[in-house]
């Protein structure tokens, strides 16, 4: 009770001088909370911050026997090597194009689905559509890629069966570098459209029904109501979602890309994350330092992007929500 009063007093800036608690006192009062949080903090320090410390090997020639501390410093050598490597522009452009494509193509569909669902009166139909469109979200990446490979198989896949039935030549989709990005993006939309629309449905349910009633009285059609009430209502969320996703620009679905990759399409499918994995862990010569340098480069760009778009998001939020 006293703690609460004190906290309230501190917050309102009317703390009584004589009762002003020192940090130590405040900490002692809630010491049990520190005991509770100790384990999670220990976890986060060991498994998240120690690797951050270990990232210094990007600036060293890491030798396993010498360890992280013992290996010698080489400055920006590994970064330099990556920037000047033959692969650099190909990997960067693949990464950026793939994520931009994914971001832009994936953006409208959940919104359309949510708007459409919002005007369904039949509850059974609405529930079934929701249930079925959410379901693919729970399919694992491995299974998802398995389905893609089976359906696009050049000899026995259903897609090529259809092409053959229409008198067309079968296509080896996974072997054509030019198809990789589209297959990646559209299968992703198939998998996530339902689940992503939940947030827009939530936003739609938050729109004041009085607006709709007033519009109906004024004789507005459903299309007009959708355009003038619903769409502006979910715009703030939509913009925030778009901006937030931009913050993870360089994090394309690493696992899915890795699984969909094969020697034939690698020209357009190699992204930073898969490259880091290949150079560092999957190759015979373990290039730990070089690989870490590339990974660190990505993390830093991501962090900059995130901080930047967070700023923009805060501004937009203020401008559009309040």
């Amino acid at each position, binding site marked *: 009770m006293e703690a609460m009063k004190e906290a309230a007093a501190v917050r309102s800036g009317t703390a009584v001088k004589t009762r002003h608690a020192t940090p130590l006192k405040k900490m002692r009062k809630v010491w049990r909370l520190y005991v509770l949080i100790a384990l999670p903090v220990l976890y986060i320090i060991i498994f998240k911050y120690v690797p951050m410390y270990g990232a210094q090997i990007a600036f060293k020639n890491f030798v396993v026997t010498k360890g992280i501390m013992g290996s010698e410093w080489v400055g920006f050598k590994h970064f330099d090597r990556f920037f000047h490597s033959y692969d650099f522009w190909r990997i960067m452009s693949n990464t950026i194009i793939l994520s931009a494509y994914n971001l832009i193509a994936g953006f409208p569909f959940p919104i359309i689905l949510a708007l459409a669902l919002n005007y369904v009166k039949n509850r059974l139909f609405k529930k079934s559509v929701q249930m079925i469109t959410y379901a693919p979200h729970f399919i694992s990446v491995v299974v998802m890629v398995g389905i893609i490979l089976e359906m696009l198989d050049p000899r026995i896949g259903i897609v090529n069966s259809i092409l053959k039935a229409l008198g067309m030549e079968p296509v080896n989709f996974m072997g054509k570098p030019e198809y990789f990005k589209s297959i990646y993006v559209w299968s992703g939309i198939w998998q996530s459209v339902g689940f992503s629309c939940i947030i827009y449905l939530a936003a739609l349910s938050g729109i004041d029904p009085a607006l709709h009633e007033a519009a109906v009285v004024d004789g507005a059609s459903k299309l007009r109501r959708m355009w003038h009430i619903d769409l502006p209502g979910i715009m703030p969320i939509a913009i925030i979602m778009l901006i937030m996703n931009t913050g993870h620009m360089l994090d394309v679905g690493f696992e899915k890309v890795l699984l969909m990759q094969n020697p034939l399409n690698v020209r357009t499918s190699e992204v930073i994350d898969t490259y880091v994995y290949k150079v560092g862990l999957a190759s015979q010569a373990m290039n730990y330092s070089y690989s870490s340098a590339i*990974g660190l480069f990505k993390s830093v760009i991501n962090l900059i992007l995130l901080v930047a778009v967070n700023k923009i998001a805060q501004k937009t939020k203020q401008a559009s929500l309040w």
Partner: protein
Amino acid sequence: MEHSAIRESRGDRLFTVFNYVLLSLFLVTILYPLIYVASASISNSEAVVSGKVWLWPVDPTLEGYTTVFRHKLIGSGFMNSIYYTAAGTAINVVMTILAAYPLSRKDFYGKNAFMFLFVFTMMFSGGLIPTYLLVKDLGLLNTTWSMLLPGALGVWNMIITRTYFQTTIPDELLEASQLDGCTDFQFVWRIVIPLSGPIIAVITLFYAVGHWNSFFNALIYLKDQKLYPLQLVLRDILVQNDVDMNMLADVQEVAKREGLRELLKYSLIVVATVPLLVVYPFVQKYFVKGIMIGSLKG
């Protein structure tokens, strides 16, 4: 003819029709691949290979499924996945509550510093190789712990849980219990946890789905096939196309093997997904709730 349409104008009726058509289109697009896979998995292997299966099963057989269950690695992978999912989720949920409760308290001195410590890891990470080296140095490589410990806490889930505690557990309750001499430990155990059923259900499900579906940790940390989770076995069969037919005795002819190989893949896809699809209808509303709580405070 328009006089009965007090509410629905002609344009609105057109809109409704268009709306239902659009949604049906969405529905068919999502549903077709799912039905196709399920049908192919119980069709005759020749029909699958020759492209005779379009929508419904042709010449139904359970051959694919019996093949799946005769495969040695799939059985052990299934059991391993159940273990990793159960143990991993238990660790996750405990850790999440331990972190979320103190952070939800207004009088927790140093709250913002701790919060920053957690949130910063969402924005920046040491990267793949340093994390791998850490796991290696801790001696976790090729042990079941490498599947459980590196992802013991999800910061996003922790934030959702904290927000839930903040908004649903009234301060008065804490004050009253403190007056009665209840310590923070007792408060968490006797009051917070019993009152937080919905959020605990949500994060349990989020974590469990994550564990069941994950394969990358296993790929880099595990060498021993006996420890492989189902998803990694699936990857070898579905993606690498590495079906060791010697794992299945008594299949001789090449054509039969080829057909069975395809059938096995479709059956596998179904087998790997069924555990989630079985619980899915029951948990769907919790997931939706989780997204909503998460979106309260972006």
